[in-house]
């Protein structure tokens, strides 16, 4: 199984994401933002970083990259897509996911190990987790506060589309402690904290992030 990892100018976490894909058991395929070619991948990861320098708004310019037009088309047809951190921002700007990520409520860039609870294990990217499982993975961003209108929030909650919530104190002002959401089909997932930095206890707070990368394998095998 081939999982594409997109590199935009300013992307930081593409190598860690590719490594996590390999450790998870799939083949990692590098994709370049300027190429209108998905290289026959079965799934795509939009990694973290500061694509296009976060100019204008985080993810606002990346959304119009040539490769994103193919990702949007494929995602609408059901291809699994995971956006982590800046990738989540790109997915919201692309309207593949509702809502928006805004400046952390205390204005600080946060970098810490964060406990989150998996609240939906029926998506392409969360199937390896138990419902209610609590994991610790890094959270590092300046604009991670998930915001949407009341109607959208009620829809996300009503349809069980919140896939992960922060445990304990709200780190960034996200509505309803939302750390990640999915689309109606469950193939597109956006997540603020970084599972790709937590696949090995030597270099991360845990190896619990790996579940996102094994989930996609299991989802494709089904």
């Amino acid at each position: 199984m081939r999982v594409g990892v997109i590199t935009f100018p300013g992307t930081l976490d593409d190598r860690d994401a590719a490594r996590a894909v390999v450790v998870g058991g799939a083949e990692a395929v590098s994709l370049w933002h300027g190429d209108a070619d998905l290289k026959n991948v079965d799934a795509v990861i939009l990694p973290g970083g500061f694509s296009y320098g976060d100019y204008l708004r985080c993810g606002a310019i990346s959304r119009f990259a040539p490769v994103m037009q193919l990702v949007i088309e494929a995602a609408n047809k059901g291809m699994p897509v995971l956006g982590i951190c800046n990738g989540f921002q790109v997915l919201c700007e692309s309207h593949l996911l509702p809502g928006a990520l805004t400046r952390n409520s205390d204005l600080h860039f946060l970098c810490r190990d964060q406990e989150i609870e998996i609240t939906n294990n029926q998506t392409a990217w969360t199937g390896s987790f138990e419902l209610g499982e609590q994991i610790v993975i890094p959270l590092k961003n300046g604009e991670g506060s998930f915001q949407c209108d009341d109607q959208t929030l009620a829809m996300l909650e009503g349809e069980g589309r919140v896939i992960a919530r922060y445990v304990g104190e709200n780190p960034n002002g996200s509505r309803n402690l939302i750390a990640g959401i999915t689309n109606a089909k469950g193939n597109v997932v956006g997540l603020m904290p970084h599972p790709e930095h937590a696949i090995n206890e030597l270099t991360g707070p845990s190896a619990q992030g790996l579940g996102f990368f094994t989930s996609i394998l299991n989802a494709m095998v089904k």
Partner: protein
Amino acid sequence: MAKIVVDVMLKPEILDPQGNAVASALPRLGFSFAKSVRQGKRFEIEIDGEPTPAQLAEVEKAAEVLLSNPVIENYVVRVEK
């Protein structure tokens, strides 16, 4: 040459931590006038000649698609003399 200005502001219901930080800095400097502060973005677009209705419609579209995020922001397009 004319200048088209696009003002982009966070919607009233969206938390504006930057505006709040400015609001709390003002009294520290002795400025006591502000009840609240909201911070936004301003785009100044120069064009040749006077803008036609078609051009203004294009700017409106660009404001909706790129310059603002309609999920969290409102925009206003105007021509500056």
